[in-house]
């Protein structure tokens, strides 16, 4: 064989190698065909309906509704009647022209992809479009499920869902662009239950990206799994009523069922209307620009001085520590002189008072004596040590720490420690008189309305609470066991009865001194309450009221906190009382009609 022939043989061998390889991958091996069908298969996502959120009575708080997006595949669009399309879609010719120009400009980047022309087109527009769809090749409507809210109740607590962004996807790799996720409130907290599982249809497409047929007659398709429904502890009507009462006022109302810790209503005002929630994207700028921060959920995120309602705790700690007997009485001559010339003022009432009456009349002086005895207790070497012991008690009431509610973004509030004062004044350079305002729930104390409501529940339960929570057991969902556990305070339950007595007298009178909450009385129901007026460094006093009813076997405990509204009995009391009455009797009694009217019509902004 000469060299030419050897070379030609080599050429033939090389050609054979290539052909053999081609024969293997093109004819013998199926692996590459499978993969190619992957590439030419179109996965059309089926979005699952998100779980419905019910209220405690089976009313739908958040449901699903259908809306339509109008999609356009620019490359499939031919000549069309712009005016007719604009009319069918209830939009303008200019808008369509502008969009089509945009698609033309970026046609290479868009390729065969469908673009969203219009979002959330209502049903009647969709029907109009669907009739004429054949005239507009390249345009189609895609159904989408959106959130619907039968009640205008609980905008802040329900939260909103929105399309996930790049950041979110990075943190949650099981989400894809185009998915929606809960961003705040219940939607956020219960995202895993509510979201469901996506499914898909598989179609085959040809080389021009036209869908040809269902792949294997839909055998490989996957159905979407709907999200789980959630039952909330919220009473939709009560929630709505609370929002109406709080309209035009800044503040919060939280109502809790003491026997279970279930949150019945959670109003933060000003709040978000539910129709804003369903289309949060287009309202975002407006919300962000509002100086009263409607997105800010005051019930768990605002830390206020609790004011006089805190006297209950100081009294109870005093009783537990043995430095106070229910029968002890202290004088109050227009206040408490903590130095020779400086006085913590009090209002006009008879003097001296016993513990019960001091609660009923909310005497400032009395509780200054109580806290003085607590902090200057011989049991402790220093005031600092006594303060830390006091703080432990307060923390056991759920203050100064997160309660552990299932509601997201709960804040802890603040109860000062001795080291805080050490830093502020120097070690050993402060004493009771320095921190005297703690006696009446002022100063460095910060509490969220949820914590204050929880205090009302503790009083109702005579010494324990269930962690307030907002989701109930339902089919397929069981709440954490921590919500079924009684949490006792460090104060013996036997001391509570006297304090409750004081709260009863505050509403119903009958003691030796003036009662502060007489207007809260509801005929036929034994209401217990405690007013508070918290000094506000930023303006007018904040108005606070906590209450529960009935006195025995309480069904509801409410805390109302109205910012810059003055004396507690004036604004917070009616809101809390009316809600309680509405919840317990379903209506407002004759005597409270005027109060209701005033509340509904008075708007501070």
């Amino acid at each position: 064989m000469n060299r030419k022939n050897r070379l030609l043989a080599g050429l033939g061998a090389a050609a054979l190698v290539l052909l053999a390889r081609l024969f293997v991958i093109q004819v013998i091996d199926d692996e590459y065909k499978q993969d190619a069908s992957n590439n030419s298969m179109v996965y059309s996502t089926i979005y699952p309906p998100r779980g419905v959120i019910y209220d405690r009575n089976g009313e739908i708080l958040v449901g699903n509704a259908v809306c339509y997006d109008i999609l356009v595949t620019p490359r499939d669009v031919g000549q069309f009647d712009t005016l007719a399309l604009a009319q069918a879609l209830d939009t303008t010719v200019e808008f369509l022209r502008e969009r089509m120009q945009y698609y033309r400009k970026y046609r290479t980047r868009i390729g065969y992809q469908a673009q969203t022309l219009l979002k959330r087109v209502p049903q009647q527009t969709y029907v109009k479009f669907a009739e004429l769809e054949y005239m507009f090749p390249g345009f189609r409507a895609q159904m989408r499920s959106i959130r619907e809210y039968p009640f205008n109740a609980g905008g802040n607590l329900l939260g909103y869902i929105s399309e996930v962004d790049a950041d979110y996807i990075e943190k949650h790799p099981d989400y894809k662009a185009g998915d929606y996720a809960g961003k705040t409130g219940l939607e956020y907290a219960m995202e895993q239950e509510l979201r469901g599982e996506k499914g898909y249809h598989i179609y085959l497409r040809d080389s021009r990206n036209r869908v040809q047929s269902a792949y294997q007659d839909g055998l490989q398709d996957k159905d979407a799994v709907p999200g789980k429904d959630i039952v909330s502890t919220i009473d939709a009507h009560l929630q709505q009523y609370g929002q109406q009462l709080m309209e035009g006022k800044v503040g919060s109302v939280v109502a809790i069922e003491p026997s279970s810790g279930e949150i019945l209503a959670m109003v933060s005002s000003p709040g978000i209307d539910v129709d804003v929630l369903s289309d949060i994207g287009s309202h975002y700028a407006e919300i962000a620009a509002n100086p009263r921060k409607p997105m800010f959920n005051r019930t768990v995120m605002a830390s206020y001085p609790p004011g006089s309602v805190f006297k209950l705790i100081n009294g109870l700690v005093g009783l537990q520590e043995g430095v106070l007997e229910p029968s002890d009485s202290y004088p109050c001559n227009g206040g408490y002189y903590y130095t020779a010339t400086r006085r913590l003022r009090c209002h006009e009432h008879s003097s001296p008072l016993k513990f019960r009456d001091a609660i009923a009349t909310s005497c400032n002086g009395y509780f200054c004596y109580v806290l003085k005895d607590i902090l200057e207790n011989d049991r402790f070497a220093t005031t600092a040590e006594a303060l830390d012991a006091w703080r432990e008690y307060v923390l056991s009431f759920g203050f100064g720490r997160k309660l552990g509610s299932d509601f997201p973004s709960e804040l802890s509030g603040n109860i000062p420690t001795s080291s805080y004062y050490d830093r502020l004044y120097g070690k050993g350079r402060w004493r009771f008189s320095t921190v005297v305002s703690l006696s009446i729930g002022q100063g460095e104390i910060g509490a969220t309305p949820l914590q204050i409501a929880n205090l009302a529940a503790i009083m109702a339960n005579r010494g324990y609470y269930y962690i307030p929570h907002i989701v109930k057991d339902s089919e397929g969902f069981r709440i954490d066991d921590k919500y079924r556990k009684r949490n006792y305070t460090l104060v013996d339950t036997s001391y509570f009865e006297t304090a409750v007595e004081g709260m009863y007298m505050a509403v119903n009178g009958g003691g030796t001194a003036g009662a502060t909450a007489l207007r809260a009385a509801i005929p036929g129901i034994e209401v217990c309450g405690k007013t508070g007026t918290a000094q506000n460094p930023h303006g007018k006093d904040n108005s606070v009221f906590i209450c529960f009813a009935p006195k025995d076997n309480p069904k509801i405990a409410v805390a109302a906190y109205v910012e810059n509204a003055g004396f507690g009995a004036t604004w917070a009391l009616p809101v809390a009382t009316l809600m309680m009455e509405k919840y317990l009797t379903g209506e407002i009694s004759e005597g409270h009609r005027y109060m209701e009217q005033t509340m509904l019509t008075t708007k501070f902004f």
Partner: protein
Amino acid sequence: MRYGQGTSNTYDRGLWQTIDWRLIACYIALVVTGLLSIYAAGHSTDSASAFDLGGRCGKQIMWFGISLVVDIVILFWINPRLWEVIPPAAYLLVFGLLVLVIFVSKDVKGSHSWFEFGPVKFQPAEISKITTSLMLAAVMSRQGFRLGSPKGFMSAALTIALPMAAIVAESETGSALVYVGYIFVLYREGLSGWWIAFLGISIALFILTLTTSWWISVVSWAAACLVYFTASVRSRRSLMLRRRLAWRTAAAFLAGAALVGATDFLFHSVLQDHQRTRIEVLLGMKEDPTGVGYNVRQSMIAIGSGGLFGKGFLNGTQTTYGFVPEQSTDFIFCTIGEEHGFVGSLFVILLYAYMIYRLVQDAERSRSPFTRIYGYCVAACLFMHLFINIGMTVGLMPVIGIPLPMISYGGSSLLAFSTLIFIFLALHRQESKYF
């Protein structure tokens, strides 16, 4: 009438006899295949019609037109003697350009190989194939040239190695690999077959060491040497010859073992990162589904999905959606494989093989060594491009960015191959006229 045909037909034989029309037919068939494939690869993203000069297909048609003009000029107007005269000057000029481009060109993905004059871009490496082939033919057809002599070997080797080194320096290692094909030309002209064996064995040992381990390579190589020695020792009659065989075998073994030892160094220190990755992907040592691995994977999916008869012209789903990158240039074969299946691939490969076969046959028939050597050079260039390019698309070769001759999109490449082939046709025609 005969008188009227006049001057152009004063030779003994007419156009039909003097020109190898089969080669031209192959050439045109391949270019047309290319045009159709470029149109198919781009028809969904390029909205332009096939003849629109804005689209790739239209541009390629324009380049085909230019190439045809050049082809005709070379075939009929330029005196073929010119090709035997200009090689030294042309070779040196192009070599100068190859070196110059390293310093003056812009960095394109790390390589420095393009001259840019406004809208006109050109790669001296494309012309270098022509000048190197001419130069090699000139050097080796000189009176008294003997490849066996050290001087002759060195001059031939240098002719190939100089432009190759310059191209490597441009970071166009892939294009430089094509020059390895000249070894077949040298072989035809008398180079020992051991050189080709040496090349093959080196590659085999290199791959074996990378994929398994160094000791498996050394042991296999030792076994191979032993088998060779025992097989050959019988034919060596004298003791001296046997001793020489033993020494040579031992030397070969040591050289192989040294290569195995150096593999790691070569692979990790001499090769650049992207080259190493491509080899690793080819040998299945590394998954690279987003980079080179993706290209090859998508390319094989496209070709594999074509099946026996393909999906039909313009019906490919893989290449038209842009799953395959570089689909109208280096990976153009995917479009053929997908839309025309194994049958189409077979047709294209046979077309190339036949073309190379014709080149070799014509080269062998010519009396002038210049024409013969040049013909082999053209055949070798075509073969290397063809084998590396198609090998790459089916996952037999590492990803090396060189075009598929006449088919890939690219004006300068088409023009260069046309010139390369038509110079041979002109040389061949001149011989046929006289003999």
